[in-house]
């Protein structure tokens, strides 16, 4: 069993826990039980991993893949289905007894399949999966090119007289192969992929990734680096909410210039203080890439006062106080070149983000990045069920789903 620690961007219980390697039987037993709920499921060449939610935090379990398979979690935990399809398409492991075995990420367009298996074979079939829309319903097909400024995704709606009775999403169009690109690299070199999983939550993903590396190597980062991460994360959170307000207003054909103006003021301030409007690549394993620019504290403070409103006030004030009270000292402490395994967390604007990695002499042996998209995409189906087709753009605007976060 590997030494394992959980590092949070805010302390919650569960630190110092270890990954439990389960026997096939124990995993099968867990698979039959409804709890604990699943947070994420992923694999590598020989193992599958499940992150489970506990009352006091999370628990990580794993089991070896035997005869190319492992007992499926989807019968008791429907949320596992997309993860199981992803694990199959990337590593070739079959979830035995799964509720859904259709292709997910693999659209039959890659040179080899499964791309991350020990011995990849020829490409998979290029047929789209069977969609389960009932035959007596009218079908509406949307995407992957949807116009507007929307992420690539294919949506199928089964409609009767304007009412949506079924909805299926097929993703994978933005699969860039990030996990494979990260393998064999140092956490420092791989951080740019974590920063580019989801651009709108780049700070949160970079923080979860850096925390995983720091947990794997049992390193602490300087207090000033931690505080700067919190400031950047707080800015990203406010920006996300402002963009949400803009998107919802636009979906209702009533663009809100105030939200857009406030977001612009904050991005301009972030650019001056941290050198990037989205703060991409600013959080790195070991700390932050650079200290806040001279005058940055005042710039951020001014922008925050400008955007303060009744809804954002408590957060804005907290953030302003944090910027004003930055501890002195270093902003980076180099990580040792060593082996270990770690889990990192960040509470991102769209929900919890979990990153996991195992390091072998300073290089990433296996890695996974879990975006809140895995739990948010299924909400689309729930929100649209029984609703009107015309509601779709409003529902999409409120959910602000990212394809790249789950497409990997």
């Amino acid at each position, binding site marked *: 069993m590997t030494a394992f620690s959980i590092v949070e961007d805010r302390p919650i219980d569960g630190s110092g826990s270890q990954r439990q390697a389960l026997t096939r039987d124990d995993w099968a037993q867990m698979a039959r039980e409804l709890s604990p709920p699943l947070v994420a499921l992923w694999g590598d060449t020989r193992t599958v991993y499940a992150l489970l939610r506990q009352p006091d935090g999370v628990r990580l379990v794993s089991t070896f893949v035997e005869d190319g398979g492992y007992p499926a979690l989807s019968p008791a935990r429907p949320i596992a289905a997309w993860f199981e399809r992803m694990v199959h398409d990337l590593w070739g492991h079959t979830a035995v007894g799964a509720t859904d075995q259709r292709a997910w990420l693999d659209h039959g367009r890659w040179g080899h399949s499964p791309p991350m298996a020990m011995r990849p074979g020829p490409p998979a079939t290029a047929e789209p999966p069977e969609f389960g829309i009932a035959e007596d319903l009218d079908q509406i097909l949307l995407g992957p090119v949807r116009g507007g400024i929307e992420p*690539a995704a294919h949506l199928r709606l089964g409609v009767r007289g304007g009412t949506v009775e079924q909805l299926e999403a097929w993703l994978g169009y933005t699969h860039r192969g*990030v996990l494979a690109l990260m393998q064999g690299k140092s956490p420092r070199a791989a951080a740019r992929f974590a920063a*580019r999983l989801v651009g709108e939550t780049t700070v949160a993903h970079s923080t979860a990734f850096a925390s995983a590396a720091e947990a794997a190597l049992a390193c602490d980062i300087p207090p000033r680096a931690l505080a700067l991460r919190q400031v950047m994360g707080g800015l990203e959170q406010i920006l996300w909410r402002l963009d949400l307000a803009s998107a919802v207003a636009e979906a209702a054909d009533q663009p809100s210039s105030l939200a857009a*103006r406030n977001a*612009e003021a904050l991005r301009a301030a972030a650019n001056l203080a941290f050198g990037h*409007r989205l703060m991409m690549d600013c959080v790195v394993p070991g700390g932050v890439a650079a200290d806040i620019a001279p005058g940055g504290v005042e710039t951020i403070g001014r922008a925050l006062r400008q955007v303060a409103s009744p809804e954002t006030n408590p957060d804005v004030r907290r953030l302003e106080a944090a910027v004003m009270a930055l501890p002195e000292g270093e902003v980076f402490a180099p990580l040792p070149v060593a082996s270990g395994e770690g889990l990192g967390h960040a509470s991102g604007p769209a929900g919890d983000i979990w990153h996991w990695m195992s390091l072998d002499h300073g290089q990433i042996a296996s890695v996974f990045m879990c975006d809140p998209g895995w739990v948010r995409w299924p909400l689309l189906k729930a929100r649209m069920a029984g609703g009107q087709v015309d509601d779709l753009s409003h529902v999409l605007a409120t959910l602000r789903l990212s394809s*790249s976060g789950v497409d990997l």
Partner: protein
Amino acid sequence: MTPWRTLARTVLARPAAAPVPPVDRETASSLAGRLEAGAQTPLGRSLAVLHIDAGSCGGCEVELRSLRRAVYDLERFGVCFVASPRHADVLLATGPVTRNLVEALELAHAAMPDPKLVVALGDCAVDGGVFKGSYAIAGGVGTTLPVDLLISGCPPAPERILAGLRALLEANARSRPGISSR
């Protein structure tokens, strides 16, 4: 040092690389004001842009939306977004062009009427960016379609996108007989 210098290296206009007037790093509003003045010269009609996510992280879309929203108010300047390739003058793609999206990109391009202008927005779209070498990407819009304009940056700032689109607008106007942007 000026954005114009970097832009000049990255802006390629298919109708004999039209020189782009220098774009200063001014405030967005003054830039917008100049654009507005430019847009009042006869340009025929405005450019209809179809955005395609070809594997973007969403960062380029953040800046594209910033550009479209109040601060940069794009539609006053002769640029509007459309949802169908059949109504699009410009295909504007972001992302490194994933293999899973190549066919959709080709189909959209085929369905466009002339002049079928193509813009690659962001480092990913320019040449694959940090994703170069992945099994899952084609490696930039140019691997799949003839590109008229490359706008680099990760993501490009709104001013930069605006400058690029303006160059395209002017080049497009010049390429139409009897219409001048000057």
